[in-house]
């Protein structure tokens, strides 16, 4: 028997705005749903890895709502890579042979509006808008503009990413928004930071997702291999030094580093991937990430999108869930929600948005600052 690690239970709540909720109550909901998905209880869990971006000890507080069993809880924060990092820690613990059943959970209660970096530079007045802009839309607008500079990618192509992912979301009952946004609507929406209009920015929503992971031995004993999803590769990288990274955040190199790790661990390549959930926090990010994840050659991201290959029904559908753009982006939950989406397809349980014959799926997230996690999955 191999020492592979499997997802045996996974679920997410429908993302939305839950004014009375706390991160731990949302986490508790998702944890119970994931446990129900594999017919286990909190008493079967040997260790918990809990991710949220605001505050700590969320995992312990979650247990107040579902059973304080005394197991080790590790609280994880890694910006928008938080959920995927928590998942990876659970994976590592089982891979190391320390535990055979772990829970990974991610949860976020978001504020409304734009995410603004804190005035951490100790400057006498805030520098936002005075020394350029460091808000998320501006950061990712520049990611797109760098692609435009190098390869001529157009505003319309970036807008089409949003049109595509919003269309996908109409098939996902767990997406925050399930509305089509035609290309013209996307392009004519309020401009936030060129080339990003409001409809090209992900939605700040509340949400949670959780996964139960098991060793192969335990999953077989429990009779859970039928719907189990095998973790084939797990990559996590921080941003290496690149020429302008300290001033203009380089989201590409960190992604490439994590992807390389995951592909090498899995012993497969991008050509083997049947569907992808990647970090479309802003529409500009998706096209460069096609290249960063090896779905196409350098500079061909725009034409890959234009070809329809990344739409549902195409060669390698991307963000069939609706992506962060339409499903929503509760920071700490996103990484596990992406894994949920891939798992549903590999289990052939994705309903009307099912990617036919999906055998291998890839998830990708980036937390600015930076962290990128890439995972590869295959049906057991």
């Amino acid at each position, binding site marked *: 028997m191999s020492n592979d690690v499997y997802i045996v239970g996974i679920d997410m709540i429908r993302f939305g705005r839950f004014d009375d909720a706390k991160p731990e109550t949302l986490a508790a909901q998702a944890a119970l749903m994931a446990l129900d998905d594999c017919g286990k209880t909190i008493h079967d869990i040997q260790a918990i890895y809990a991710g949220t971006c605001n505050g700590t000890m969320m995992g312990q507080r979650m247990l107040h709502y579902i059973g304080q069993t005394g197991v080790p809880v590790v609280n994880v924060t890694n910006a928008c890579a938080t959920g995927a990092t928590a998942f990876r820690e659970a994976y590592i613990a089982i891979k190391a042979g320390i535990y055979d059943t772990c829970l990974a959970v991610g949860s976020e209660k978001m504020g409304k509006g734009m995410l603004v970096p804190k005035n951490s530079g100790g400057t*006498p*007045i805030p520098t*936002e*808008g005075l020394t350029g802009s460091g808000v998320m839309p501006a950061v990712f607008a520049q990611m797109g503009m760098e692609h435009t*500079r190098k390869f001529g990618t157009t505003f319309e192509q970036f807008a089409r990413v949003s049109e595509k992912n919003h269309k996908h979301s109409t098939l996902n009952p767990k997406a925050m928004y399930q509305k089509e946004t035609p290309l013209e609507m996307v392009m004519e929406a309020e401009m936030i930071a060129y080339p990003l209009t409001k409809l090209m920015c992900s939605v700040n929503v509340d949400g949670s997702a959780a996964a139960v992971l098991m060793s192969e031995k335990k999953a077989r004993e429990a009779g859970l291999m039928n719907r189990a999803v095998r973790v084939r590769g797990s990559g996590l990288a921080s941003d290496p*030094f690149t020429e302008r990274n300290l*001033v203009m955040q380089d989201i590409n190199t960190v992604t490439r580093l994590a992807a390389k790790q995951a592909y090498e661990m899995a012993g497969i390549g991008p050509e083997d991937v049947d569907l992808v959930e990647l970090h479309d926090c802003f529409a500009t990010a998706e096209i460069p990430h096609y290249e960063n994840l090896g779905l196409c050659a350098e500079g061909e991201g725009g034409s890959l999108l234009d070809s329809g290959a990344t739409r549902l029904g195409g060669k390698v559908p991307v963000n069939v869930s609706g992506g962060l753009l339409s499903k929503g982006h509760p920071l700490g939950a996103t990484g596990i929600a992406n894994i949920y989406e891939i798992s549903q397809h590999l289990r052939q349980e994705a309903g009307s948005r099912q990617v036919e014959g999906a055998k291998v799926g890839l998830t990708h997230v980036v937390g600015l600052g930076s962290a990128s996690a890439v995972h590869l999955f295959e049906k057991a």
Partner: protein
Amino acid sequence: MNDGPNDARPVAPYTAIDKTGAPYLIGSRCSACSATHLGYFENCPKCGVRGEVSEVRLGDHGVLYNFTIVHRSLPGVKVPFISATVDLDGGGTVRGNLLEVEPDPAKIPFGMPVNVQFRSASIAVENGDGYIAHFFVPADRGARAR
């Protein structure tokens, strides 16, 4: 040339004022790998060498590497403005607002030469009186006007 008031304080921590009263951008240069970074570093973020980094005065001319036009910002920030990333001649990359160019992507060519100028922060933000910050202006027009 800079038109900030003489007693105005620079906002960014990587700004200094020389003996003649002229503000400039501070950088760090690594003697091991020759990388130049904006701001002060004790050890080199590129090669990790310790204690081989010295403070340098960064150039006041460069080329536009990248930009976005920000239309929605925080209260007190004047919009729209161009947030520009500029590679300075002699090394170092710095972000700032690009002035004296129409905020229209068709009129902002990548690679355009720019000068670094220090001006009152009040041209960009409402609470900027008494402070100065670096801005970029097109190199040709900046030279003519001054």
